[in-house]
């Protein structure tokens, strides 16, 4: 029998695992999952649950699969681009010219990446398993067990994510655009909640179980009303309905991959050149290349001598603020043009608007203290998630685009200052997110009018969006840019950014809202605070602190940007680019620190 590892499928599978094993981001992801598995035991200690009870294991896997830690987004990062990467790097002709079928290629890529995803997820489960041995005295532990960890991991996490992986992989491969997949992952949360609330809730309980793609309700109903003893002895069993659900999910994944197989072409698309335009002039020849000069006289006949075109003398200006502002505007114009040509925006922007306003569109809104304040408040909270996602993905992409397109050498050899090239990317993302805020505001006002919940108070919208959302958008754009510059690796940046946000939102959901680790003021303000209430001054000071932090982040990004700059902090008794960065960093850190102390952080 042929060794499976030596089949084309096996070789592609192994290569995919090898490629992924070199991505630092995945190790960061494993550490993040492991640390959360430890962190989550605080709930078990609090409620008296045993950390290896069937109930606890299944419950944790359920929350993990639902995406409390941003798992759907991480899955999108891993599954979206295995094939796109081959096309981007130009490896595709080398692979497709070998005796390999479409199915072998696609399945090798899919299962290789899915295996890596499952390994990352397994870090969470393995840590839970190890906690049985390495637990603290406060943790309640039942006799050592292994099987439930694997059983629930396979049925709750692996099978659910088989569908996620298949959808992401299919979409990424067919669209050849990872950002569309990231957008889809971003809207997963509202989409899943809408599916639960709008569709499943109205169906009989049996269908509720069969049609839930995550099998979220595995385990006892209303656990918080049960005693710890009951829960610790509870055995989670899989009913025929649940098993049918798992089968349905696997079939859906197979259907997805079948569609991909039927639609995928290994031949180059005519429009592909526009997506990835990289000119590689290296011949790859190791030796010395000599082209006989005798070819040339023969060719000379084809060309008519033409008159040399003289280039006009032009005035150039590099010095002064106005010259640099002009360069910044030019760079911003190009960044915006590139951003607007992103196909993913056509999907993401409308969806972001729809899901940000879903709450006020379909549910009744209490006029607390006024309809406008309530409408603006609801949509501000919902929009924050999209601000986060859009900023993370488009900032990181903007920073790495130049390297990916190999345009960096051309840009970096120009006499434009670092801040013009860097700030243009931040501002472009900011224009996008502020555009989203404005559009959400307009749609919300329209909904308020349509639902006859007048009068419309523009001041309420301006107050909430202007005080909460816009400073948050500025902070996010600056923070993500700083992170991208410091970490350099695109996927590591995604992992750290999404992981940090997921960890923080988990803390907020557990009632920890300390201002020190809640820079975006999630769930800590009311409209009356913003309308001149007793905490208004404190909130305003926190916003100043946030802006100073954002500017410090930008200074840090400017200082550590990879483009080589003049050495030292001073040259000819003047501050260099790095010198300005350090000075600005110190000033903004001082402001942030001082105001932070005033706010009581």
């Amino acid at each position, binding site marked *: 029998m042929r060794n499976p590892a030596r089949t084309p499928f096996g070789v592609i599978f192994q290569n995919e695992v090898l490629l992924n094993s070199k991505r630092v981001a995945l190790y960061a992801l494993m550490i993040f999952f492991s640390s959360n598995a430890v962190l989550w035991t605080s709930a078990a200690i609090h409620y008296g649950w045993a950390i290896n009870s069937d109930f606890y294991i299944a419950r944790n896997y359920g929350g993990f699969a639902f995406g409390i830690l941003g798992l759907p987004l991480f899955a999108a990062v891993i599954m979206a681009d295995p094939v796109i990467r081959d096309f981007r790097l130009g490896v595709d002709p080398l692979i497709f010219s070998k005796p390999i079928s479409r199915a072998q290629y696609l399945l090798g890529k899919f299962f290789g990446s899915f295996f890596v995803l499952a390994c990352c997820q397994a870090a969470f489960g393995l840590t839970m398993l190890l906690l049985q041995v390495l637990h603290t005295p406060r943790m309640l532990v039942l006799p050592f067990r292994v099987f439930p960890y694997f059983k629930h991991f396979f049925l709750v996490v692996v099978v659910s994510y088989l569908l996620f992986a298949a959808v992401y992989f299919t979409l990424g491969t067919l669209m050849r655009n990872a950002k569309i997949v990231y957008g889809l992952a971003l809207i997963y949360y509202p989409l899943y909640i809408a599916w639960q609330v709008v569709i499943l809730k109205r169906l009989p309980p049996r269908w509720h179980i069969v049609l839930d793609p995550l099998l979220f309700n595995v385990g006892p109903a209303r656990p918080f009303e049960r005693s710890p003893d009951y829960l610790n002895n509870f055995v989670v069993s899989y009913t025929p309905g649940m098993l049918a659900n798992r089968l349905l999910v696997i079939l859906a994944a197979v259907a997805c991959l079948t569609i991909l197989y039927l639609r995928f072409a290994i031949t180059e698309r005519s429009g592909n050149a526009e997506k990835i335009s990289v000119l590689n002039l290296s011949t790859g020849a190791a030796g010395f290349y000599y082209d006989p000069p005798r070819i040339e006289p023969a060719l000379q006949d084809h060309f008519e001598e033409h008159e040399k075109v003289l280039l006009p003398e032009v005035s150039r200006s*590099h010095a002064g603020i106005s010259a640099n502002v002009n360069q910044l505007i030019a760079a911003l114009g190009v960044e915006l043009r590139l951003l607007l040509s992103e196909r993913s925006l056509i999907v993401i922007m409308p969806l972001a608007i729809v899901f940000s306003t879903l709450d006020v569109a379909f549910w009744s809104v209490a006029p607390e203290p006024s309809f406008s304040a309530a409408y603006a408040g609801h949509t501000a909270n919902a929009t924050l998630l999209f601000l986060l996602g859009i900023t993370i993905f488009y900032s990181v992409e903007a920073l790495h685009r130049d390297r990916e397109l190999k345009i960096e*050498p051309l840009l970096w050899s120009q006499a434009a200052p670092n801040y013009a090239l860097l700030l243009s990317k931040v501002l472009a993302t900011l224009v996008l997110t502020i555009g989203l805020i404005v559009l959400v505001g307009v749609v919300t006002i329209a909904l308020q009018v349509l639902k006859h919940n007048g009068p419309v108070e523009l001041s309420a919208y301006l107050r909430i969006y202007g005080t909460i959302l816009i400073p948050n958008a500025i902070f996010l754009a600056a923070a993500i840019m700083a992170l991208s510059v410091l970490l350099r690796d695109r996927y590591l940046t995604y992992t750290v950014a999404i992981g940090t946000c997921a960890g923080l939102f988990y803390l907020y959901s557990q009632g920890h809202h300390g201002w020190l680790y809640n820079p975006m003021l999630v769930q800590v303000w009311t409209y009356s605070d913003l309308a001149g209430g007793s905490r208004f001054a404190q909130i305003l000071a926190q916003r100043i602190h946030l802006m100073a932090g954002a500017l410090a982040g930008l200074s840090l990004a400017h200082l550590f940007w990879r483009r080589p700059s003049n050495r030292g902090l001073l040259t000819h008794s003047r501050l260099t680019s790095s010198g300005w960065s350090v000075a600005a960093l110190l000033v903004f850190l001082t402001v942030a620190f001082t105001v932070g102390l005033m706010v009581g952080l």
Partner: protein
Amino acid sequence: MLEIQKLTKTYSSGVQALREISLDVPNGMFGLLGPNGAGKTTLMKILATLLEPDSGMAAMNGIDLIGDKESTRKMIGYLPQEFGLYPTLTAEQTLHYFAKLKGVHDKKDRGALVDALFERVNLAGARRQRVGGFSGGMRQRLGVAQALIGQPQLIIVDEPTAGLDPEERLRFHNLLAETVSENAVVILSTHIVSDVSSLCSRMAIIREGQILASVTPRQAMNELAGSVWEASVSREKASALKSRCQVLSSQMFDGLARMRVISRGERPSEEFNPATPILEDYYFEVVNQREQSS
């Protein structure tokens, strides 16, 4: 004039790309000839302010290219070996963008400059096309156009013709020849001998991070005058001759080995006839000498 002194660069992988390179490059077209991996691109990147050397100095008209990158960027034009362009922008938008980054802010001036550049690189008909749809040759010409913006004093062109078809290469040679002015240095790195022989008034040979020779093409030819011999012999005889003669190159043609050897003063054997030296002979002679001495 460009002066390079004891430039050294070792990458973190341990590869020593440049070993105390020193060169004086006068105004005009200067060819830097060497095989892949010789250190040409490293040197070009250092001159283009994109890479920090470990030590050494490079200066152009009194400006320190290593220490004062901001001033350097105002006076260089750079065409890298591998580069991309924003595929969704048109050629015109691309050139306007680079012109603005180079400090050409006056709209009228910029328009006239861009028009002239399109004429110069023969892309006037394609100026409103997206560069994503350009052929390799068209993109390369657009690359030259952006390098010419703003009357650069130092034009750095790294492996510009590799990967181009012969027709496009010839067009590109003509274009490069037109860029030469009395007030600018054009430094052209290549591994293609005919690029240097067609275009450059001076050249240097670089190998394993060291400059082996710096001459004019004519000096190189003169040095080998009367010393190069050519013969077409059977494969077996070729093996025997290789041990006796200093072989410059050997190529199979029509079942026979066409050998070029160097022999000063006397005919190496009766099969050989005198041959006119070409630049390739000089390259191999220099490289062979180097290998023998090391």
